């Protein structure tokens, strides 16, 4: 039982990273119907920015210096997202979505490479105050960082959902995602909606990247985690915010449980089967529900 709970705790911590990333994907998808493959790069850039900022803000007592760095880093990547949307994505509005998706792949490659140059040769610590410390919760060893990740994610999700529910801009974004032309006719600036969605996705990816880097540090391969959010959004449905959060946590839990038990029960699946378990779950769900668990079914008109 302890092993199980420990796996669940780790899974929820890791799942919060996927949930944040998945939210970013879904926000962009809802605004422009495009899957942005640039999220992994934003994630790497965010973690890197935070690591430099945390170093600069060492004077501020822990853990507040790190949180300040996290906020500043997220803002920085949001601005980066804004800039890229404005210069590269905006001119492409109206082109086939697949072309834009491939452009984001190009962005991903360029941003990641620039980030790699700053990482350097060694593994770069992200500067978080928790390291690998863990606390004992009723006999279960839970890593401190996982608790912080989970709490922060829950807070961020709450803020996001109330933003979409109550704020003017949030409502505008929902309206635009429902029907762009009608929204335009109602006086909503679709351009602002695009820009905001890219900035939000950038900030969320930055937080996710930083969380992912706690524990082991920033390595050039950190971005691969960003692709794990893809099964999460497909699970939840490409255009469902709630689905993204649920999908993210599901992927985290599945991975953690598979990593814990598969070695004993199904060793023939291979040693690191947990890494791809999310994709297997994704395929299984899609066989039953082609638009994910919570996605909207597209109505085809000729």
């Amino acid at each position, binding site marked *: 039982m302890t092993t199980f709970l420990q796996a669940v705790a780790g899974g929820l911590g890791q799942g919060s990273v996927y949930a944040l990333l998945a939210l970013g994907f879904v926000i962009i998808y809802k605004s422009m119907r495009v899957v942005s493959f640039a999220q992994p790069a934003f994630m790497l850039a965010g973690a890197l920015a935070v690591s430099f900022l945390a170093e600069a803000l060492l004077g501020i007592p822990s853990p507040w210096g790190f949180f300040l760095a996290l906020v500043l880093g997220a803002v920085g990547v949001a601005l980066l997202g804004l800039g890229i949307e404005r210069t590269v994505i905006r001119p492409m509005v109206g082109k086939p979505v697949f072309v834009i998706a491939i452009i984001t792949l190009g962005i991903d490659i360029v941003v990641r490479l620039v980030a790699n140059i700053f990482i350097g040769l060694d593994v770069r610590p992200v500067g978080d105050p928790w390291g690998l410390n863990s606390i004992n919760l009723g006999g279960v060893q839970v890593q401190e960082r996982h608790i912080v990740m989970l709490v922060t994610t829950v807070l961020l999700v709450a803020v996001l959902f109330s933003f979409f529910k109550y704020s003017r801009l949030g409502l505008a974004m929902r309206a635009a995602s429902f029907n762009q032309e009608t929204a335009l006719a109602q006086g909503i600036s679709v351009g602002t909606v695009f820009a905001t969605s890219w900035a939000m996705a950038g900030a969320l990816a930055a937080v996710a990247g930083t969380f992912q880097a706690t524990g082991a540090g920033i390595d050039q391969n950190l971005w691969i985690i960003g692709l794990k959010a893809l099964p999460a*959004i497909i699970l939840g449905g490409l255009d469902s915010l709630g689905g993204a959060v649920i999908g993210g946590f599901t992927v985290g839990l599945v991975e953690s449980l598979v990593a814990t038990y598969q070695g004993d029960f199904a060793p023939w699946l291979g040693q690191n089967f947990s890494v791809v378990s999310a994709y297997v779950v994704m395929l299984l769900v899609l066989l039953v529900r082609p638009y994910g668990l919570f996605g909207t079914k597209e109505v085809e008109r000729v």
Partner: protein
Amino acid sequence: MTEQRSTSVSTKASRQLWGRPELYTSYGQNLRMLNTRPKQVAVVAMVLLAATYVPFGLPDEWLHLFAMGLAAAIGAIGLNIVTGYAGQVSLGHAFFLAIGAYTASALSGEPGRRTIGFGITFLPLWLLAAGVVAGVAGVIVAPLATRLRGLYLAIVTLGLVFLGLHIFKEWKALTGGPGVGRQGPVPEMFGQRLDRNGDLLTGDQKMYLLTLVLLVIFAVFARNLVRSKVGRAFAAVRDRDIAADVIGVSVTRYKVLAFGISSFYAGCAGALLYAVLGRVEPDSFNLLLSIQFVAMVLIGGAGTISGSIMGALFITMLPRLTQELPTVLPFISSDVTAPLGAANLAIIFYGLMIILFLIFEPRGLFGIWIRIRNYFKAWPFSY
């Protein structure tokens, strides 16, 4: 393709004028494989040049690269069939390349080693087997594609790459395991090793000529396919699948066909590519490889065979070309480890190239060619 039609076409073609490249005097002519005189001349000249000057005028090192590019071009044509012509976005090409590479490696491998080998080194045999096995895998995957649309399909095929990667890493008897790999397919014909230096030709020359001949065959076949009934059905599915269904094109059937043919091409390309490279490592069949093929198609120009070939050659040469950059542009460091060194630049170029091409020239290298041609066509009034 009856004898009767071909004679009628050739009489019409003889009436064609020089300098009017897009003047078609009949529907039959429009449908021909090389539908204009300049195209006929240009293609023949290019193939002649590639078959005579290149293998004897260029150093082996470049032939090796060209051979890789030509093998990759077969794969790019395959991806173009499913993505450019039939409109099914696939990020899973690396998976089918891998199946081809491993089928061929296993068939041609030496028996009794650490990795599976059957000792069947006769090239046409393992090449065909590689294509068929990959093609069957494509047909198996295709039903998913008929259920899914657009980006869902892209992400699922991406999932395929990750699952494949896992299987190839774990199946050590076949692949040698990650970080180790195994010997690639052994290209042998009539008792002659094509990748080893012989009395007359070097290994690189032989491999280059082999890939060239095969590419010509595969390209002709693809061009024939897309100008036939099947090709038009692909385009109908791509442009509006429901409309296609309504006018009697079986969407499922053609999607499955497109995936099958595309995977057959990918399998053959994978086998050939790794016969040229000499070593297969499971980690190389990752997302980046898929992206490289997508880049070949997009940079070359989606929906054109010649574009795929140009794109494949360009992407394959890119790392090598950036290595030459420091000699031309002194501010670029030739030091591999430098931040703006050649190695990093090559990767940045990929990214920038994809972005810039899609923004400014969505028709790719093929589009640039069209522009150049139009410029000279309209000369002296080209503005």
